């Protein structure tokens, strides 16, 4: 009875409209802040991805510069070696030793940059995955908010939100494409033939052998990644071919014929599969050549060690 009375009092209270208005205002503010919060999160993730991308590009440029230096140095070493074969000179020998030292340092630099590149690529992928989740939530939020506004007869405002939702949907689809598409990057796999002088010390030979061995492992890992991509592509091909067998899967809208789109997709997948298979062979060849070189260096090192 008391409670009823209290309620009655509240409803009849002269400040009741004010209470309702304040609550509605607070609710709207809270939902606005929430929406802003999500959008801000998306903006932050996008900024991070942009920064990582910039970092990745910087690494790739730096790597390319080092590779160019390496090419110059390799040919310099070769000519020094040739000159030494014709007739020894202490200056040339010193020059060669110095050049080899520099070359080894360049190879180490490339190794380090490779690691940094891989780590950044992983981070970017992770961030993109997170961004995709946030975007999916935000799209629903925008649609719901648009519907709410339309119900309040605010058609223009609703249209603006629908437009935003559509733009985000397109962006989201592109992002999902990036995350699932199998980019076949042709990597420069020129094998660094570390020119030998025959005067390398035991320690230097071991060091060179270890560098090459590390490269072997790296290339093998990349080859395995490529194999995984190939398997996924084959699976996708199977799925696409299967879709084409069923009636109405490719053309869910009877009014529009889209079958050619699937044929194109199949052709794209086939092209990628051919490219990947060639790449895997190239990686395997590179790995076995490097492994052989590494073993040779290690055997020489052992021989030198025994002589000592």
């Amino acid at each position, binding site marked *: 009875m008391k409670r009823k009375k209290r309620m009655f009092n509240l409803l009849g209270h002269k400040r009741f409209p004010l209470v309702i208005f304040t609550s509605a205002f607070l609710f709207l503010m809270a939902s606005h802040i929430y929406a802003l919060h999500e959008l801000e999160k998306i903006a932050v993730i996008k900024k991070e991805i942009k920064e990582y991308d910039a970092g990745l590009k910087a690494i790739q440029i730096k790597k390319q510069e080092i590779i160019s230096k390496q090419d110059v140095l390799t040919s310099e070493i070769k000519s020094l070696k040739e000159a030494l074969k014709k007739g020894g000179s202490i200056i040339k020998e010193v020059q060669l030793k110095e050049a080899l030292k520099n070359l080894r340092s360049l190879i180490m630099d490339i190794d380090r940059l490779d690691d940094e590149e891989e780590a950044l690529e992983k981070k970017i992928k992770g961030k993109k995955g997170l961004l995709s989740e946030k975007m999916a939530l935000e799209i629903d939020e925008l*649609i719901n908010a*648009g*519907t709410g506004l*339309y*119900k309040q007869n605010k*058609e223009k405002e*609703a*249209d603006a939100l*629908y*437009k935003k939702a*559509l733009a985000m*949907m*397109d962006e989201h*689809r592109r992002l999902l494409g990036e995350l699932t598409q199998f980019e076949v990057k042709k990597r420069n796999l020129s094998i660094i033939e570390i020119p030998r002088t025959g005067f390398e010390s035991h320690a230097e030979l071991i060091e060179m052998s270890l560098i090459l061995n590390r490269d072997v492992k790296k290339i093998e890992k990349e080859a395995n990644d490529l194999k995984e991509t190939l398997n996924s592509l084959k699976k996708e091909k199977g*799925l696409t071919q*299967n*879709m084409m*067998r*069923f*009636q*109405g*899967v490719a053309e*869910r*809208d009877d*009014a*529009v014929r889209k079958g050619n789109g699937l044929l194109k997709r199949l052709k794209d997948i086939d092209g990628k599969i051919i490219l990947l298979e060639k790449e895997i062979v190239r990686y395997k060849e590179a790995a076995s050549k490097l492994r052989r070189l590494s073993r040779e260096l290690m055997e020489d090192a052992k021989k030198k060690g025994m002589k000592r």
Partner: protein
Amino acid sequence: MRYRRYLILAVLLGLLISACSKQGHRLADEALSKGDYEKAAEYYTEELKKTQADVHLRNNLGITYMRLARYDDAFRELQKAIAIDPNYAKAHYNLGLVYYHKGLLGKEVEEYKKAIAIDPEYKIARMNLASAYLAKGEKALAEKEYNWVIEKEPENKKALYNLGLIYSETKRRDEAILMFERYIKLEPKGKLSDKAREYLRKLKTKDKK
């Protein structure tokens, strides 16, 4: 007496407006069914200026935009149709189609499901949901939808053929044979009958082996 005159006048005016509106509606619907989408869009837009909250008009304008490949416009109209009446199954189904055209498979599935939740007898929505599941590689879910359709419509050729394929792929030969036989019986000279016969022959050969 004087009031009665005004009342009659108001009723007549109302009838006239309603007749004009129906005329506009009819013209728009006719244009849509004839495939004159530009005209249909024009008529529907004109009509919507008079009655903004007409769910059928919004839905049909959405379809018209879809036929004109203006998928973003179609999306907006269908969202509004859903805002007016969230239980209007057709708008959800058409929105599913818009998502299909936009390449958003997940959202497409969501909308077909909503349409079916509102109207469980919505066969086209179930057929499309099954197709979308197949596109996602979810055969078991597709099978469930096709089976539902066949139960209600035992002569649905598309469902029979696709079920035949699903059973054949999931190594259920007897069921697959049955589906293909039913399909061929219904469509002995259809564009896929030869393929169905080929599948049937292979399945039966395997059986003998």
